[in-house]
């Protein structure tokens, strides 16, 4: 992965990180989209999709409710997809290490969002009097400052994540033992268990949840057998 690649990926991570909350929250930052876009940038959209879909299974659990702290999937999915595509020559450990790296970056990304919110509060406090006087320049300026800082946050997070984790991943997969399909199965099982728990958490109060879910599972299993 060249420096130019990292810089462009960092920009993509910045844009997708911005989408998480600040602008336009169109869910471009969901892993299934962000991972695919990063994969497509590196010429491997199907690999980006595979990683993105796996991460989406985790992301179903984490919804962006107001002031709560949640993982930042936009920038982290760019890191994960780039790592996955970069490790495609060593398939046994590629998916597991890329997913783990994404989850860690997403966690750190959540922390950076909290820091950004504190920084926004600091700026707002400093300009409180001007806002109370109805200064258009200050109200618009605070908004633009927050948006710019969020874009930078995502870009720096993505660039730093790639710088730190790409070499580490190369070391880890160099010593990897075990079959690729087993590795993928462990990752898939972990992700799907999280999804199952999330589905219960989200919908257990919905009347008929168990029946709807069971019917869905039956249809899905039938499709697996038939297709």
């Amino acid at each position: 992965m060249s420096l130019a690649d990292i810089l462009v990926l960092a920009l993509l991570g910045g844009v997708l990180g911005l989408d998480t909350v600040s602008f336009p929250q169109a869910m471009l930052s969901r892993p299934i989209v962000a991972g695919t876009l990063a994969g497509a940038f590196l010429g491997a959209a199907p690999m980006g999709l595979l990683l993105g879909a796996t991460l989406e299974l985790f992301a179903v659990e984490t919804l962006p409710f107001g002031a709560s702290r949640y993982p930042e999937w936009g920038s982290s999915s760019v890191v994960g997809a780039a790592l996955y595509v970069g490790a495609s020559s060593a398939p046994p450990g590629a998916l597991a290490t890329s997913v783990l790296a994404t989850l860690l970056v997403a966690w750190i990304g959540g922390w950076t969002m909290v820091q950004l919110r504190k920084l926004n509060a600091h700026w707002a406090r400093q300009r409180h009097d001007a806002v109370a006087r109805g200064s258009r320049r200050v109200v618009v300026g605070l908004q633009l400052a927050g948006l710019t800082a969020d874009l930078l946050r995502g870009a720096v997070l993505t660039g730093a994540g790639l710088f730190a984790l790409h070499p580490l991943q190369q070391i880890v997969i160099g010593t990897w033992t075990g079959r690729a399909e087993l590795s993928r199965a462990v990752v898939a099982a972990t992700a799907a268990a999280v999804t199952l728990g999330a589905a219960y958490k989200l919908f257990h109060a919905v009347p008929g949840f168990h029946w709807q879910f069971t019917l869905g599972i039956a249809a899905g299993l039938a499709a697996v057998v038939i297709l």
Partner: protein
Amino acid sequence: MSASLSSATPSGAVVPLGTQLAMFVRLLAVQGAWNYETLLGNGIGFCVEPALRRLPGGPEGEPYRAALARQSQYFNAHPYLTAVAVGALARAELDGEAPARIERFRTALCGPLGAVGDRLVWASFLPLCSFTALLVFGLGGSALTVILVFLVLYNAGHLALRVWGLRIGLRDGLGVARALGHPALKHMPMRLGRLAAALAGAALPLALQRVIGPGRVLLGGVLVAVIVGGLLLSRLHGRVEGWKLAILALTGFVLYATLR
């Protein structure tokens, strides 16, 4: 946005389509300065501002400054449904409602707009779109197909909600609370939840099969592991987040695969 948006209110103040478009675009960035003290407050002021320029005296006038200061105070709601608040508050300011009344209304809006939006969008519609995309992925959809299905489906709902919110807010002003009692908003989360539950069930085995790939023979074992893990997480409901446990599990697996 429909042309009906550029309508006059009973009190006669017209909000031109260009102003409404500016408000709509700004609504996409309403959370740009989100912080733990005023939350969405500055964003509301930022979004209402284009309409406030139509107050007597324009952007240099005292009514404009007083209204912008009022609208930039603390506010909290679901980001998409802030469109309702932005439209209604702009209408109230242009109609010359008493400041104290506007402030009481502003405070009263926070709770309902947050609760309705969270249930409708975050807890129902977004998971529904995710599971739909995962189902398409599991059925073998290409990268382009999967992300287009997700983005078109999600943003059709997302943008429609924002457009509806701004339109209804500008039309009804302080009477907008009636719109929040709309049966669609009341019953939709339940209906979407049922559909999402069925889609979740169907998507899981198919997506798993595609992720595992050539090792399909492992699918049975994986399904058993998923059921056990899912039941465990359901029992821990609310006490621990699954994705954090997943970090522990995957770290353990990576260490096992590299150090054994």
